[in-house]
C-alpha cells in the first residue's frame, strides 16, 4: 500500500510542473500589466518601470518561473503585490466556499442519480425508464450557465424562494449559508446527474441478472435490501470512477458557477487575479486546484479497493 501511495505522489510532480508552467505562459500572453493596474493609467512610464523591476516583472519569463518554483519548493507561495495578502491566506479564505459548493453539488447529483438509476434498472424497458433515460441524454446539451440563468429566473426572480447571489458565512447563519448554495449546487448537479444515472443504471441492470441476486431472493430478502445491499455495491464501481472523473469537471464548473452566483470561492479568486494581472495569486490558486484534481483521482483509486475486494487483494 505504501508503495502504491508513493508511486502516486511521484506521478503528481510532473503534472503540477506542467500545469503551473502552462499557466505562467498563458498569463504572460495576456495584455495588460499589474504595475499599471496598481498605479493607475495616469502613471509615468518611469514609475511603471520601477515598480515592474521591484516586482521582478522585467525578468524573462523562464527566469520568473524558476524563481517562483524555487520559492514554492521552499514553502513560500508568495504574496499579492496588490493586496499584500499571502497566497496561502487568500486560498485558505476561499477554499471552504468552493469545497462546500462542490460537495453540495456532488451530493445533490448523486441524490438525483442513484434513486433514478435504481428505478430505471428495476423497471428497465418500461415507459418510466425510457422517459428518464431520454431525459438523461437530453440534459447533457444544456450548458451550466443556461441552467443557472433558468434557475435564477425560476427560483429567485419568479418564485422569490432563494437568493440568486451573495453568500453568508456558515458561522454567522447556517441556514442562510446553505440557502445561498442551493441554486449554484443545483446548477452543477443538473449538469452532473445524467452521466451518473446512466452508468449506474446500466451496471445495475447487468447486476440484477446475476446469479447472486437470484440467490438473495431465494433467501427471502426484501426487494429494498436486495437493491441497496446486494445490487448497489457491486454496481457502483463505474459510478465511483465517473464521479471521480467528474469532480475534475466539477472543479471547472464550480469556478464558473461561483462567478455567476457571486460566491467568494477559488473561482472568484482566480478570475479576480486574472483581471488584476495578479500572477502570484493566479499561480498559487492554480497550483491548489491542480493538487486538488490529482488528489481526487488518487482518492478514487483508493475507493476502488474498498468497493471491489478483488482489487484490494490484488486479483483483479
Amino acid at each position, binding site marked *: 500500500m505504501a508503495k502504491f501511495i508513493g508511486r502516486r505522489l511521484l506521478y503528481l510532480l510532473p503534472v503540477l510542473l506542467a500545469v503551473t508552467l502552462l499557466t505562467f505562459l498563458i498569463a504572460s500572453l495576456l495584455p495588460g500589466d499589474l504595475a499599471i493596474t496598481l498605479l493607475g493609467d495616469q502613471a509615468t512610464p518611469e514609475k511603471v518601470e520601477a515598480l515592474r523591476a521591484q516586482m521582478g516583472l522585467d525578468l524573462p519569463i523562464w527566469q520568473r518561473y524558476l524563481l517562483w518554483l524555487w520559492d514554492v519548493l521552499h514553502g513560500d507561495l508568495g504574496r499579492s503585490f496588490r493586496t499584500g495578502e499571502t497566497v496561502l491566506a487568500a486560498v485558505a479564505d476561499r477554499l471552504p466556499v468552493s469545497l462546500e459548493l462542490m460537495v453540495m453539488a456532488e451530493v445533490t447529483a448523486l441524490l438525483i442519480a442513484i434513486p433514478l438509476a435504481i428505478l430505471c434498472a428495476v423497471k428497465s424497458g418500461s415507459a418510466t425508464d425510457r422517459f428518464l433515460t431520454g431525459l438523461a441524454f437530453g440534459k447533457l446539451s444544456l450548458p451550466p450557465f443556461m441552467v443557472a440563468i433558468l434557475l435564477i429566473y425560476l427560483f429567485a426572480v419568479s418564485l422569490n424562494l432563494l437568493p440568486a447571489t451573495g453568500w453568508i458565512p456558515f458561522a454567522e447563519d447556517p441556514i442562510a449559508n446553505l440557502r445561498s448554495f442551493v441554486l449554484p449546487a443545483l446548477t452543477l448537479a443538473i449538469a452532473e446527474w445524467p452521466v451518473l444515472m446512466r452508468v449506474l443504471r446500466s451496471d445495475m441492470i447487468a447486476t440484477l441478472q446475476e*446469479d447472486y441476486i*437470484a*440467490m438473495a431472493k*431465494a433467501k*427471502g430478502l426484501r426487494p429494498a435490501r436486495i437493491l441497496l445491499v446486494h445490487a448497489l*455495491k457491486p454496481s457502483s464501481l463505474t459510478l465511483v470512477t465517473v464521479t471521480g472523473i467528474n469532480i475534475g469537471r466539477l472543479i471547472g464548473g464550480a469556478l464558473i458557477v461561483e462567478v455567476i452566483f457571486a460566491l467568494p470561492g477559488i473561482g472568484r479568486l482566480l478570475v479576480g487575479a486574472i483581471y488584476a494581472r495578479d500572477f502570484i495569486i493566479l499561480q498559487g490558486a492554480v497550483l491548489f486546484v491542480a493538487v486538488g484534481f490529482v488528489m481526487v483521482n488518487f482518492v478514487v483509486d483508493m475507493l476502488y479497493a474498498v468497493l471491489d475486494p478483488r482489487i484490494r487483494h490484488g486479483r483483479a
Partner: protein
Amino acid sequence: MTQPLLSVRNLSTRFRTDRGLVRAVDDVSFDVAPGETLAIVGESGSGKSVTALSILRLIPDPPGKIESGEILFEGKDLLKLDDAGIRAIRGDRIAMIFQEPMSSLNPALTVGLQVGEPINLHRKTVWSKALDKAAELLGKVRIPDGKSRLNSYPHQYSGGMRQRVMIAMALACQPKLIIADEPTTALDVTVQAQILALLKELTREANSAMILITHDLGVVARYADRVAVMYGGRIVETAPARPLYKSPRHPYTRGLMASVPRLDGDTGRPLVPIEGQPPDLASLPAGCAFALRCKDATERCHRERPPLVESARHHFSACWYHERLAA
C-alpha cells in the same frame, strides 16, 4: 405414505419468448415426504431448474409465468401466498442451493454477512449473534477457522469451498426442505463426491427433506430415496430409487442409464449416448415427446401422448408400453 411435506400438483410454467410459448414445465406433479430425498433427473433443458424455481416462485416474470397448479407446502398453497408470505418461506422453511457456486455468492459482500443474513432476517437475531451462528455453520460444512473466515470474500475461496458456503447458507435456518439444483455440476469430479456426501449428511442430521436436481443418474443411486425423471418439461417416470434403477419402465430412463457409467459393477459395459436432440419446448409434438428418439416408438406414440400411470407399486411411467418394458 405419511402426509407429504411438499405436494406439487399439476404445475405448469411457461415462458413467452421470441420463438413462441415455451412449455418449460407442463402438468408436473410429485410429492416429497418429510426427511426424504427426491432426485429429479433429466437432460439439460428438460425443465428441472424451472420446476425448482417455481416452487419458491422465483421465475422471472416476464418472460415466465406459473400458469396453473398448486404447490402445497406443509398444507399451504405457496402460489396463494402474498409477497411477504412467500418471502417468509424462502431461505427459512425452504432453502435453495444453486448450480454455480462461482457466481451465486455476492463478490462485494463478506461471507459472514451472506451466511448470517438468513438468520438475522428470519430468526430476528441481532447481527453479532447471527455472525456467531454463521461461524458455527462454516465449521459444520468443514471450513476450518470459521470465526476468522467471516470477514473474507468469496473470491478468496475455491469452487468447492464456495459450494460449502452455499450449503452453510442453506442450512442456516434449519429448513424443512432444501432444493439443490445441480449442486456439483460446476465442480471438479474429485470435489463432487465430497460435497454431495456432506450435503446428504447434513440434511439427514437436520432431518430436512431434499430435492436433488442432477443430470447424473450415478449420483441418484447413491443419495436419493425416490427419483423423478423429466423429459420435455414433464415427468416421464417416477419410482423409489432402487426399483427405478434396477428395472426402469421408460425407454428414456433406460437410455439415460446406458449413457452413464454405473456404480454397481458391470464396468466393462460400453456407454451408449441417447441419439438425437432433446425436444424443442416451444413446439412439442402431439404424441409422446420422446417418440422421435425412441427405438420402441410406434405409430400410436406419435399420435397420442401417454399418461403417467402406476405401472407397479409406487412406480409410475408415461410410456404406452411400460408393461412390456417391465418384462
